[in-house]
């Protein structure tokens, strides 16, 4: 018998004027010791399933039907005190953001001990001993000393380890990990996922891994359930799903991944539209409206989740891979992507850029006690019309470079030259007053969170007209026409001008952000993590749009992201940053497929690939440890503390950026992974 059996679970959330049918007949099973991955876009019910099992539903949420059986006991009808015995005891849970789910005023030792004292009836000394034990189990260095630390004293990765320790303290039979690595860097993500997998094997518990990332699923789950609009649409074991997805939604999720299209550099497949409104779900296949194969039957009848011989279940009338399909997929004659043109002039030349942020102490006197070295001597050039991708972990200085280019920060030293190659261009760091204000037209910024970057009290029309009004471009009438044209270009209806930013979906807001960045017809757009907060299908829409607009307007992008696969898809040149230094730079494919710097190698390895065979066959270890403090960066090569190849010279001498191929591939390393070919 399975450890957890969810039968036909229905969960509603009552709002003041309507009811959201968040889960509609979800059936899942989790066996002892296995990892079940739940994957889908945001809002499709993944987290709601986890919360229903734990009965930690948001206000207004309640289970209206179905059963949840844990280890042979039906817990659907359990009382609150009965549920308290289940939570943290039989079922442990790890949440997405360890900072908000830990109590900032309690030491982590006491927080972990709390659940032991509640469930195991242990004394406080015994509970603390157990806390130290589980902290050691989750790989926290010096666990006894960490017991007295507060959450803010730990790094993000260590906090997530503490959260996992808390969930494991009472040896649960089932661990529910809800997007456990989404808030973490990709190098830390790999460490945490490996930890969860290792603990599962050692403690013999089952794991439900909720994630939006197919790559994470590929490497860690035994079986997968794909959810869409409050229903499970496909479920089978991981290798079958990845090799042979049957539901069109699953297939579409795969095709929207940038790595799928990177080889041919074709347009990404993006799922049109949005998931249905769950207050009144359509009485038919819920995916029909967005499905490219949908036939009339899909819009009137609801397909059941049926299994084939191998236990592969899917809810579709016309599953992928059968001849019954009615829709004909159009293969696109795609114009080639924008390749770097060596003859093209340099639009942006950054030389020896340095930026440090002072660290002060004391409330009144503000003594300067150190400097966070955010950017330490970075140089690169960007040609007109190309996309320069900047990658690295958070805290590596990539965002600071973006802010320096658009002028939100002033550089300590170094130059940012913009414009014609022959005259050397204008140094943006030297501009003051009116010139500087006028120059803003040429360089615009696209924010990660478009919602936060738009005044919530302004209508979209006003938001989009604001850059034109500030720069006094055209009359009011002309400005209005420009706004209409911009909306059309980013694929939004003209009626959007009357709306407020909060009325749009995440993807639509990102379109608005792009429209605003385009308003002044800039030559260069710095895009800071523009797709990081988006679902994979929406991400594909935005990436496609960015490429279309680049072609039409001959735009140049500086594309900042922590996601190497997205950067690789969009960029012609990639720069890899580590702790304020550019450690490797070169043509995108070269950097990705034949990295020279050990850090780049580690980054490439840590990216979860949506292919179980590749993902499980990985032999490289990724990047160990965590980013050192930028207040006192390591001497010599800044990466040496985490580098598997580091030698004595790395601590003494800083490696210069030297060329490795004639094609402009350069890296800063004493012990490169391959010899220079120049």
């Amino acid at each position, binding site marked *: 018998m399975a450890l957890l059996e969810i039968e036909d679970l229905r969960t509603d959330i009552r709002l003041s004027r309507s009811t959201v049918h968040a889960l509609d007949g979800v059936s899942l099973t989790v066996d002892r010791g296995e990892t079940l991955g739940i994957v889908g876009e945001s809002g499709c019910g993944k987290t709601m399933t986890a919360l229903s099992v734990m009965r930690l539903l948001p206000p207004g949420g309640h289970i209206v039907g179905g059963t949840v059986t844990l280890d042979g006991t039906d817990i659907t009808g359990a009382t609150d005190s009965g549920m308290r015995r289940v939570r943290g005891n039989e079922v442990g849970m790890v949440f997405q953001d360890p900072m908000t789910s830990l109590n900032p005023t309690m030491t982590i030792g006491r927080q972990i001990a709390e659940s032991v004292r509640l469930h195991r009836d242990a004394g406080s000394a015994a509970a603390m001993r157990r806390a130290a034990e589980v902290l050691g189990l989750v790989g926290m260095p010096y666990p006894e000393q960490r017991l007295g630390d507060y959450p803010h004293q730990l790094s993000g990765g260590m906090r997530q380890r503490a959260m996992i320790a808390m969930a494991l303290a009472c040896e649960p039979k089932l661990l529910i990990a809800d997007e456990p690595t989404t808030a973490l860097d990709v190098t830390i993500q790999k460490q945490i996922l490996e930890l969860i997998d290792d603990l599962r094997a050692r403690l013999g518990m089952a794991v439900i891994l909720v994630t939006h990332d197919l790559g994470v699923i590929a490497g860690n789950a035994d079986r997968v359930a794909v959810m869409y609009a409050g229903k499970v649409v496909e479920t089978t074991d991981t290798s079958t799903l990845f090799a042979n997805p049957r539901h069109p939604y699953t297939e579409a999720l795969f095709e929207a991944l940038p790595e799928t299209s990177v080889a041919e550099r074709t347009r990404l497949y993006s799922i049109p539209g949005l998931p249905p409104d769950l207050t009144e779900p359509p009485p038919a296949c819920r995916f029909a409206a967005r499905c490219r194969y949908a036939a009339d039957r899909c819009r009137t009848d609801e397909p059941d989740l049926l299994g084939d011989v191998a236990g592969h279940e899917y809810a579709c009338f016309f599953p992928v891979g059968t001849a019954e399909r009615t829709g004909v997929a159009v293969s696109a004659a795609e114009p080639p992507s924008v390749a770097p043109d060596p003859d093209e002039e340099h639009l942006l030349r950054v030389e020896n850029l340095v930026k440090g942020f002072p660290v002060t102490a004391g409330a009144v006197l503000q003594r300067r006690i150190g400097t966070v070295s955010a950017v330490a001597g970075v140089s690169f050039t960007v040609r007109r019309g190309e996309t320069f991708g900047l990658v690295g972990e958070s805290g590596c200085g990539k965002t600071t470079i973006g802010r320096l280019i658009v002028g*939100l920060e002033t550089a300590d030293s170094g130059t940012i030259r913009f414009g014609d190659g022959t005259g050397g261009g204008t140094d943006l760091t030297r501009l003051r007053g009116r010139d500087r204000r006028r120059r803003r037209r040429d360089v615009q910024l696209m924010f990660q969170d478009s919602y936060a970057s738009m005044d919530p009290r302004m209508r979209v029309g006003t938001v989009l007209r604001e850059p034109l009004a500030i720069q006094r471009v055209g009359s009011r009438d002309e400005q209005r026409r420009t706004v209409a044209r911009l909306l059309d270009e980013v694929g939004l209806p003209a009626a959007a001008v009357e709306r407020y930013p909060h009325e749009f979906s995440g993807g639509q807001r990102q379109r608005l952000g792009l429209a605003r960045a385009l308003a002044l017809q800039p030559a260069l757009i710095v895009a800071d993590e523009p797709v990081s907060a988006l679902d994979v299908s929406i991400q594909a829409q935005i990436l*496609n749009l960015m490429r279309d607009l680049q072609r039409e307007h001959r735009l140049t992008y500086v594309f900042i992201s922590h996601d190497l696969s997205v950067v690789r898809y969009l960029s012609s040149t990639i720069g890899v940053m580590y702790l304020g230094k550019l450690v490797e730079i070169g043509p995108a494919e070269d950097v990705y497929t034949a990295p020279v710097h050990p850090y780049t190698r580690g980054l490439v390895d840590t990216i979860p690939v949506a292919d179980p065979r590749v993902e499980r066959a990985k032999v490289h270890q990724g990047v160990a440890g965590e980013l050192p403090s930028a207040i006192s960066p390591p001497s010599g090569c800044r990466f040496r503390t985490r580098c598997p190849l580091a030698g004595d010279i790395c601590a003494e001498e800083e490696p210069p950026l030297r060329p490795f191929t004639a094609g402009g591939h350069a890296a800063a390393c004493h012990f490169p992974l391959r010899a220079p070919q120049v």
Partner: protein
Amino acid sequence: MTANTPSPFLDPSERGVQPDAATPSGGAIQGPTRGLFRRGLDVFTENRLAIVGVVIVVAFLLFCFVGPLIYHTDQVHTNLGDAELAPGAAGHPLGTDQDGFDQLGRLMIGGRSSLEVGVAAAVLATVLGTLWGAVAGYVGGVVDAVMMRIVDAAMSVPALFLLLVLSAILTPTVGVLIVVLAMISWLGTARLVRGEALSLRVREYVQAVKVMGGGGTRIVLRHIAPNAVGTIMVNATFQVADAILTIVALSYLGLGVPPPAVDWGAMLSHGTQYVYVGYWWLIYPPGLAIILVVIAFNFIGDALRDAFEVRLQRR
């Protein structure tokens, strides 16, 4: 992905190839278009207490400003022959006070100066405090330090003491009272708005304006002040209540508007002399009026806080 080779499908709804020309690729937007004001009004009207508050305030406004046009009384000439009549006496439904003025009519004109001073002082204090706080918070650094130390210094003077000195020097007309009350009550608003501005100036939409080349004036007037409007309006309603209470206190001490003008505080002050003789109609009506108006403004302030919260508003 191996068994099922991905083909470079073109998203049919992308630009260019639109199956349904009415739906742009970014997706349609649903629901009727309505302004922030209408939506705010919806949230506001859901709060029962706020409706009660509005009804009370409107009732008092009518009572004080329209009432005297219907109910004529002589509030200028004392008439000691009719002094201290109990309620129900001919022509005097609420009785008369120690000088023979009709109590009901006096409540009307007394409320007039109380409301006028309260509202005008609150408006003046709010405008001044908002601008001061927004500029200090947005500019920051030395400017902020100097501006806020001025506020701190002014706050360190006890308000009642300052009022007593000022009303002793100046003749306390309605105009003077408004200015003086505003002068002491803008300080709190300034501190509050500065705090808001400090958090608003690092918001991404303020940075976005800087990237477009926008200057400080635009940022303060177009972005910081409007986004602090929830806090400001809520504070303003509390300021009205506070100002009414302050003039009540002043009048009670005998430093309010000079006769023949009157306000509720002065009426209450005179009435308390007759506590022991049982002339309740000289105490309860002005006292109740003060309490009702102050509570009503506080209810309204509470509901406004919700109404200005954009996220609470639905389509």
